């Protein structure tokens, strides 16, 4: 997909929050974030259908993940160090509590859980996983770290009655 578009993302678009919000600062309520995300999801689905919507969220997550990696993490080749940094920044920003269940970089298989996930923790029970944005986000983080493309699937989600979101990442063959 070409990215020479009107709304091409750049980190600068996040703006100078110090200057722009001298009184309100750089935090907002989680509800606001979710309102935005779930409103988008509804309308986009009405326009392009469920499958395309999931794809769009996955790809948007991947774009965000790539930018996030290059602006928020210090490049490293050490998996432990990468995970440590990521855990810290995800917690500090209130995105979620990341834990690694398994990580085999040789086989290209990683299982992660995110508790208190920004997108879905506390949502009513649905019969599907909702965190496709997170899937894309994680896939891009892993790709930025390792140079290998990963496909990430959310296998458990708060929304399916699980207390934590669990993501299975596999390196593309």
């Amino acid at each position, binding site marked *: 997909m070409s990215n020479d578009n009107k709304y091409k993302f750049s980190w600068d678009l996040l703006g100078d929050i110090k200057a722009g919000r001298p009184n309100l600062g750089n935090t907002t309520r989680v509800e606001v974030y979710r309102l935005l995300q779930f409103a988008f999801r509804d309308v986009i689905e009405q326009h392009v259908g469920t499958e395309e919507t999931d794809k769009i969220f996955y790809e948007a997550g991947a774009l965000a993940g790539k930018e996030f990696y290059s602006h928020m993490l210090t490049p490293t080749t050490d998996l*432990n160090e990468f995970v*440590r940094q990521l855990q810290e920044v995800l917690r500090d920003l209130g995105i979620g509590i990341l834990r*690694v*269940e398994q990580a085999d970089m040789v086989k290209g298989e990683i299982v992660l859980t995110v508790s208190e996930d920004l997108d879905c923790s506390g949502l009513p029970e649905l019969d599907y996983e909702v965190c496709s944005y997170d899937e894309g986000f994680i896939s891009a983080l892993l790709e930025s770290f390792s140079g290998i493309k990963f496909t990430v699937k959310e296998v458990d989600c708060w929304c399916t*009655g*699980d207390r*934590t979101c*669990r993501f299975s990442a596999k390196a593309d063959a």
Partner: protein
Amino acid sequence: MAQIPEKSQELLNLAIENLQGLLTDRTVSPEPPKELATVNGFPQLHATLLEVRTAIMGFASGDLGCQITKKGFLPGSIKALQASLNHLTWQTKMIASGDFTQRVDFMGDFSESFNSMVTLLDESMRKLELIAHTDPLTGSNNRGYFMQLLAAELERAKRYGHLFTVLMLDLDHFKRVNDSRGHAAGDEALRYLCRVLQTSGLRKTDFFGRIGGEEFALVFPETGIEGAAEAAEKVRDNLKETAVIHEGQEFFITASIGISEWRFDDTQETLLTRADQAMYRAKETGRDRVCLSR
């Protein structure tokens, strides 16, 4: 209360007995009773409880690998426990591989004990490493660790083509000090030499070690032979400037120094040998001097 038809009552009793069995019995059938197989929702409930049961039994016997496919609060809670235990396993593996930054924060009292264990391990490992790397007499790097550092420097030089130099330093007439003033005085002379080395303007990246009785080797990364010779002259001057003091007695020591510069096909051995040969030339030509291996 409405009367339950006899047939339904029988089925209900059977269902309760079956579900009760899933909770309390040691062995259960993987399938629900035939009579209940067609009761709406019952086979699913049976399967869910069976899966939860199998998972818990697995955990109890140390098997964390069971797949929990069912959704809902109870399977979800068990999956959360499974995730925590798996994460703990991963963390323990990381600790075993030497990553002592791992901390647990989701297991109540256990977390605290676990974390203090890791902190303690970390401290002990550091202490042990220091002991393993240090020459007990002088506190400088010992031969083994110096060689490790030198190997790493060789690697770096090869990879980036950065040049570096090695100095061999041997105290002059050390045997004479030992014989005439005793071994304690000799030991003091060695400690004095190390203090001089530490205060002769070495940079953070320079390092040295005691590699023999009165023999020390120094490495100057990113430094050519001229720069190293300058540094060596400074060490030589500083060394003889101040006296060694042992039991109220003062005496002076000097050193002979040989320097070699890294060449692309060098091994530790060839590099040290050239510095050694230069050092012997310094000895042969009168001691208390610096010789270069060109």
